């Protein structure tokens, strides 16, 4: 097992932990944190893959940078939306109404 494999598997593990959090935690901030853990996992996997050849591959780094920018903006927007939802409804979770059960 090489260092690349170690980092890659850690990335996959982080993705799974994050996914588990998104699906099981009702609190919106916990969902968003879990999402960020999952995306960190994917980014870690990509960075690990960059060390495949003799020299580091620059492309995954460019991709991860783009991904981080997207992830930061999406998180910022989602936190803002969660705050607005809290102001409008007093809720910090996504309530499931009977008619949504489909």
């Amino acid at each position, binding site marked *: 097992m090489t260092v690349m494999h170690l980092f890659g598997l850690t990335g996959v593990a982080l993705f799974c932990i994050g996914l588990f959090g998104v699906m099981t935690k009702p609190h919106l901030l916990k969902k968003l944190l879990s999402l960020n853990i999952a995306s960190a996992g*994917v980014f870690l996997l990509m960075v690990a893959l960059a060390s495949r050849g003799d020299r580091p591959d620059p*492309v*995954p780094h*460019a991709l991860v940078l783009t991904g981080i920018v997207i992830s930061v903006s999406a998180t910022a927007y989602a936190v803002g939306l969660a705050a607005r*939802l809290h102001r409008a409804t007093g809720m910090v979770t996504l309530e499931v109404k009977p008619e949504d059960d489909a």
Partner: protein
Amino acid sequence: MWTGQQPEVWQVAGPMIAAAMTFALGSRGRKTLVGVVIALMGWSTLGTIVKLIGEGPYLHVIGGWVAPLGITWRIDGLSAVMLVLTTLIGAGISVYSLGYFGTSSREQHNETYFWPLWLFLWGSLNAVFLSGDIFNWYVTLELSGLAAVALITLSNKPDALTGGMRYLIIALVASLFYLLGVALLYGEYGILDLGGLSKAIEPTHLTMVAMSVMTIGLIAKAALFPLHFWLPPAHSNAPSPVSAVLSALVVKSGFYILLRLVIEVWPAEMTHALAQGLGILGGAAILWGSFLAIKQQRLKRLIAYSTVAQLGYVFLMFPLMTIGWDTDTNWTSRAFAGGIYQVVAHALAKASLFLAAGVLIHARGSDDLEGLRGLGEKLPLTVTAMALAGISLMGIPPGAGFFAKWMLLTTAIYSQHWSWAAIMLIGGLMAVGYLFRIYRRLLTHVDHGTFHQPSRIMEFAALGLAGLSLLFGLSSMPLLYVLRIGMPEQLTNYFWGMM
């Protein structure tokens, strides 16, 4: 002039520049700007198609920076058909929105934010349809997803905020699944570009894993059963022009990427099982979506569930396409044409239905189905639009939906796949069932008090899109002629014979 040779640039640049301008200008010159955008997009789409017919499929390397660090656009028949669709629906929705927002300060505030977000969404949808590499799709999906959520939550009502938030979380998780697949593919092959990937790809276990996670992400974006649960609350609580673009175009972007990957990237050995799986989910979506549409008591919720059902038909194209992939490609090309036509037909009809629903809700002040009684006499244009769009959705000739469903149905019948055929026929009957729940109430002669005259421009926009859904049904050859350019031979040979 360089713009004349590269009309496709404006597909993305036009709406994005206009978005920045409306943000800066506010309400000043809005009508002029919207008019200019529509004209520019029409010209750009027409120019792209003329260039495509003249030169065949081509690449556009943005800024001269080549892949992998630069961005390459690919223009062929499939992307051109999607551009035609975004242009027509984009124009319809823009015209409609000029009359949609009221004069109260709350409505004015909403409108100020609506225009930049909608134009950004338009541009990023076009970017999805033009991109030709798997990482760019991730970026453009995120762009369109964020713009879409912001548009849903525009009204600031609790239902809209909850629906939007749920959609946002699903969209972000779906994008991560997709990105995980992109990472795995890049790790294995070192290529992001679609053309290069299709040559390099091998049917390994890793490709299988990448295919699975990317498919999960994309069917969540495309709201295929059982990952459709976010769609009805998100689409039905958005402002009506936003519901229209969500149901007509945004869900199609996930489908478009899935289709591209199936026909160009995944090894043929692996697509067969994938296609069967997608077909089974599509069939379940038709039955379940139609069933729930029949049960709804609110107009926009009913239309949203109808989207779940109609998307099911689109996904039936996958198993039908693989029937004759190696033996009789007539089936494949029939199913391909039917599936793409279903995308076009549903987009036009559903956009028109949501726009018309917006007019009715404006007139009555509620979207309760019972409240629609008697509106048929007062808003004949809107009811006509709903009827024409319904003809296409139910699959009655001469609607565009008839042609789409006929192609899919005949493929299933001739190749003796009776279960697909039965599901399509049952789904058609159920569509009649849920749409007539709307018509029956609209056409009863009861007067129900409150009525606000909606702006005429909204009625004409809805009617225009409904008319187009009929026009594409009356004459299907122009679109199929464009669709065939640059697509693999298995997908188009049937239409070579017809033209």
